[in-house]
């Protein structure tokens, strides 16, 4: 029986000359089933719980299917503290990831040299045998610790278990040294605890939210954007420090249009004002902190007038904003930000923000930072992991002692042979991260890759990194698999279940299956002794008072807090996990390692004549470079634009909408042109663009060649000596009007 569409198409040919766009018909066909008749739609049919994997917020939601049993829409789970029943645009656009016809479909094995992207299809068995063979060879010749895992996402749990069982502890998430690492170390040094993910900010109840280096609203940390909106409803004020007029700035009481790279001066001036005007929380500081006198002496000369000369911010604006913070205290948040790897002194800058929070007394107080609690879900029992002979730290003796997680860029660097270092990494397993766009200074990453004996990439989409792999394993999307129980910390401990809403498409498989299969071939099957995910999950859930069957019905289970209160009690005796047991304004930990115990402002390089500072950020419709090919999200934003101030545009003769090329200080020109957006929202010394575009892999039919990649222009890296974070904002660009003559890289 032909459906209505076929009928029209057949008879349409008879009438001749239908003004229909057949291409949109074809793409539309990919999407779910028949269109609604009139305004009537199918009733809400079955729904299954899931946890979104498009970004790292891990919102719990419900996947609805239509009457044909195909995935229709995804909606938030009302019981979930991360999403409160409302997903962000990427989560709502999840079906686009599932239906993407450009997905990796079958295992691939490289047949020619790396980078030529010539593969042949292989069976899973063949792929696993290849990988296991190479891993055993590396273990024999160099040691199992020379295989590293670079991961971002839920696959890391199983692949990590595999690697630890294999004998390697070198598991890194680029989100540490390429993103939030510095603030974690800074907060550890100050409060004895990191900030965590999701951040423990009590935005919902705050009276003043200070965003310095955070563009909340354009970055879509779902729960935080929601709470910011609640805070606005309750009359909270927002202070935004940003050289760009961000969306948050447009909702702020005070917007401080700071000169880029001078944030530390502003923070120190704020500290000075709070201390010398005696606006800080005296009781809190007296009771809980250490090093106040040293801090006071340190900031004596760091007045707003001093900061004005550096930041171009008017002194009375600095004072007024400090007063605003102090008036709201303790219900004030100096937001720790998320991606803080900017100029190489980022740990110190985050320290200054932590100190500010401590002075305002917001840590552990309502409207400031709450005390999160998470549910502990026991792991499926497995034998103890062998002790690794060496870790990544052995590649950097004496350095980065304060880094609490593995540095992905460190693994990358330690893959390039060095005479001074005994050995280097020989094998990488990469899962859920497009390293080409993640780690700055791509040429170094590629050099490292060329020195590998084995590169396995496990991904859902043919991202640029897959082109360099020896073996590409196609992972199925989060909508097609079970995964480990989500047990993220929040105001109340909670767990969430991800279960498949559909069978894996094509020949894709979940990461847990891949890990187990590899383990079998490596003789490590004891570490994966469960027979199925259902068995494992049910056992785990029974340990925490529920069951797989219940979680499949409810999706999210929230428990009561079992220890500590959400906020510090008044006059409560507290001990912090620092050397002194108190909140360290003066950091003894940093001093012990030979770093500045109190943050010091150092000026950073400024753009040379004719160049503009490259600043990058996020858009709420996209996550990293992951979603550029998602049909639903590409509809919202298909390319990024270079924001250029009208004065600058006039000087250069650039019109709004014109396509130009960007070239950085090292002569690297963007592979693709980028559309110029001439807007007043950006300073005249900077150019801004959203990260995650300019894809070079032609297999991404919707994303290839659209927009330009900021990552390829970030060639100058400022490494933070404290924990190895890679500062990326020290690059400058100029404008060019034609592409580079020779072939661009990759």
């Amino acid at each position: 029986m032909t459906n209505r569409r076929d009928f029209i198409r057949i008879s349409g040919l008879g009438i001749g000359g239908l003004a229909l766009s057949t291409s949109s018909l074809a793409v539309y066909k990919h999407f779910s089933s028949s269109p609604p008749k009139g305004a009537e739609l199918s009733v809400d049919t079955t729904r299954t719980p899931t946890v979104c994997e498009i970004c790292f917020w891990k919102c719990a939601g419900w996947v609805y299917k239509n009457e044909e049993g195909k995935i229709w829409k995804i909606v938030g789970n009302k019981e979930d503290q991360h999403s409160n029943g409302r997903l962000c645009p990427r989560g709502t656009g999840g079906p686009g990831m599932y239906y993407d016809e450009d997905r990796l479909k079958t295992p691939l094995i490289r047949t020619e040299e790396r980078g030529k992207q010539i593969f042949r299809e292989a069976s899973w068995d063949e792929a696993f045998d290849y990988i296991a063979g190479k891993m055993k060879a590396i273990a024999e010749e160099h040691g199992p610790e020379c295989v590293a895992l670079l991961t971002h996402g839920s696959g890391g749990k199983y692949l990590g278990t595999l690697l630890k069982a294999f004998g390697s502890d070198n598991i890194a998430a680029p989100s540490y040294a390429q993103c939030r690492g510095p603030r974690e170390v800074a907060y550890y040094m100050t409060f004895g605890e990191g900030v965590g993910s999701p951040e423990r900010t009590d935005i919902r109840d705050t009276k003043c939210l200070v965003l310095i280096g955070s563009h909340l609203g354009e970055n879509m940390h779902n729960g935080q954007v929601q709470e910011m909106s609640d805070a606005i409803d309750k009359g909270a004020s927002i202070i935004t420090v940003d050289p760009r007029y961000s969306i948050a700035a447009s909702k702020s009481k005070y917007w401080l249009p700071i000169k880029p790279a001078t944030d530390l001066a502003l923070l120190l001036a704020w500290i000075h004002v709070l201390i010398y005007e005696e606006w800080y929380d005296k009781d809190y500081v007296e009771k809980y902190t250490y090093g106040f006198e040293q801090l006071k002496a340190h900031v004596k000369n760091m007045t707003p007038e001093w900061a004005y000369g550096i930041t171009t911010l008017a002194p009375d604006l600095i004072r007024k904003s400090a007063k605003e913070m102090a008036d709201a205290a303790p219900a004030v948040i100096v937001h720790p930000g998320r991606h803080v790897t900017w100029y190489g002194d980022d740990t110190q800058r985050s320290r200054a923000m932590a100190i500010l929070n401590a002075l305002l007394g917001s840590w552990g107080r309502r409207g400031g930072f709450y005390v999160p609690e998470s549910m502990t879900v026991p792991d499926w029992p497995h034998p103890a992991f062998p002790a690794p002979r060496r870790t990544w730290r052995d590649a950097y003796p004496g350095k980065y002692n304060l880094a609490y997680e593995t540095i992905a860029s460190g693994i990358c660097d330690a893959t390039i042979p060095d005479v001074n270092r005994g050995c280097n990494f020989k094998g990488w397993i990469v899962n859920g991260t497009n390293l080409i766009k993640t780690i700055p200074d791509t040429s170094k990453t590629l050099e490292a890759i060329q020195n590998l004996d084995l590169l396995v990439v496990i991904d859902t989409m043919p991202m640029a990194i897959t082109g360099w792999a020896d073996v590409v394993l196609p992972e199925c999307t989060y909508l097609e698999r079970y995964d480990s129980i989500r047990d993220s910390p929040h105001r109340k401990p909670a767990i969430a279940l991800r279960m498949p809403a559909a069978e894996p498409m094509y020949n894709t498989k979940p990461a847990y299956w891949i890990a187990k299969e590899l383990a079998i071939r490596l003789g490590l099957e004891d570490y994966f002794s469960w027979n199925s995910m259902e068995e494992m999950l049910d056992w785990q859930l029974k340990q925490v008072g529920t069951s797989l069957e219940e979680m499949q019905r409810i999706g999210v289970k929230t428990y009561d807090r079992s220890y500590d209160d959400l906020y510090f009690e008044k006059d409560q005796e507290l001990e912090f996990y620092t050397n002194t047991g108190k909140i360290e304004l003066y950091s003894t930990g940093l001093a012990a390692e030979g770093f500045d115990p109190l943050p010091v402002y150092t000026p950073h390089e400024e753009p040379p004549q004719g160049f503009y500072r490259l600043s990058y950020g996020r858009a709420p419709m996209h996550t990293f470079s992951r979603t550029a090919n998602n049909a639903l999200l590409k509809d919202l934003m298909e390319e990024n634009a270079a924001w250029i101030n009208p004065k600058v545009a006039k000087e250069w003769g650039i019109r709004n909408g014109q396509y130009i090329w960007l070239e950085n200080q090292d002569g690297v020109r963007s592979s693709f042109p980028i559309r110029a957006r001439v807007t007043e929202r950006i300073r005249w010394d900077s150019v801004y663009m959203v990260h995650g575009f300019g894809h070079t892999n032609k297999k991404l039919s919707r994303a290839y060649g659209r927009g330009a990649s900021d990552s390829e222009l970030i060639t100058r890296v400022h490494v933070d000596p404290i924990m190895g974070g890679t500062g990326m904002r020290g690059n400058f660009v100029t404008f060019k009007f034609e592409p580079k003559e020779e072939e661009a890289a990759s």
Partner: protein
Amino acid sequence: MRYAMAIDTKKCVGCSDCVVACQTENNVPIGYCRDWVVEVTDGTYPQLEIEIRSERCNQCDNAPCVRCCPTGASHVTDGGIVLVTQIKCIGCGACITSCPYDARYPHPDGYVDKCTFCIHRVKKGQQPACVAACPTKCMYFGDLDNPNSPVSEILKVRKYKTLIPEAGTDPQLYFLI
């Protein structure tokens, strides 16, 4: 019964969740949208202001699209919602041309399509997909004739505006400013 929507431009961040939610809920074909988000920036750096609006069909009380439809496919249903009966639509495009908000579009299947205030959800007591998805909860929907509905309540306490009131269409989409 008169349905209407109010959108708080002060809370909207322009994330466009409303656009994707509508697209998945209503099977809007790729390349088309029933609602969209407009961002207006005024001023010179650093004296700047932004207004963000999520727009869609205004379900006008005096809808030119209903007036000009030659077959009666465009009609007003309970609650003032303007709908298109697909089997009566001939695809002439008159309604598209008559809408000053450019809210309608020609569906690839031939008929003309637009926002329906998710009438299939409203009938079941749910909110339109965009309102239910919005992370900042800046959208309010309800019956203007009911003084306790979310939209009536918010219009009592906030200043608001409509788009191009001089076009005489009497739009029922209110922007809180």
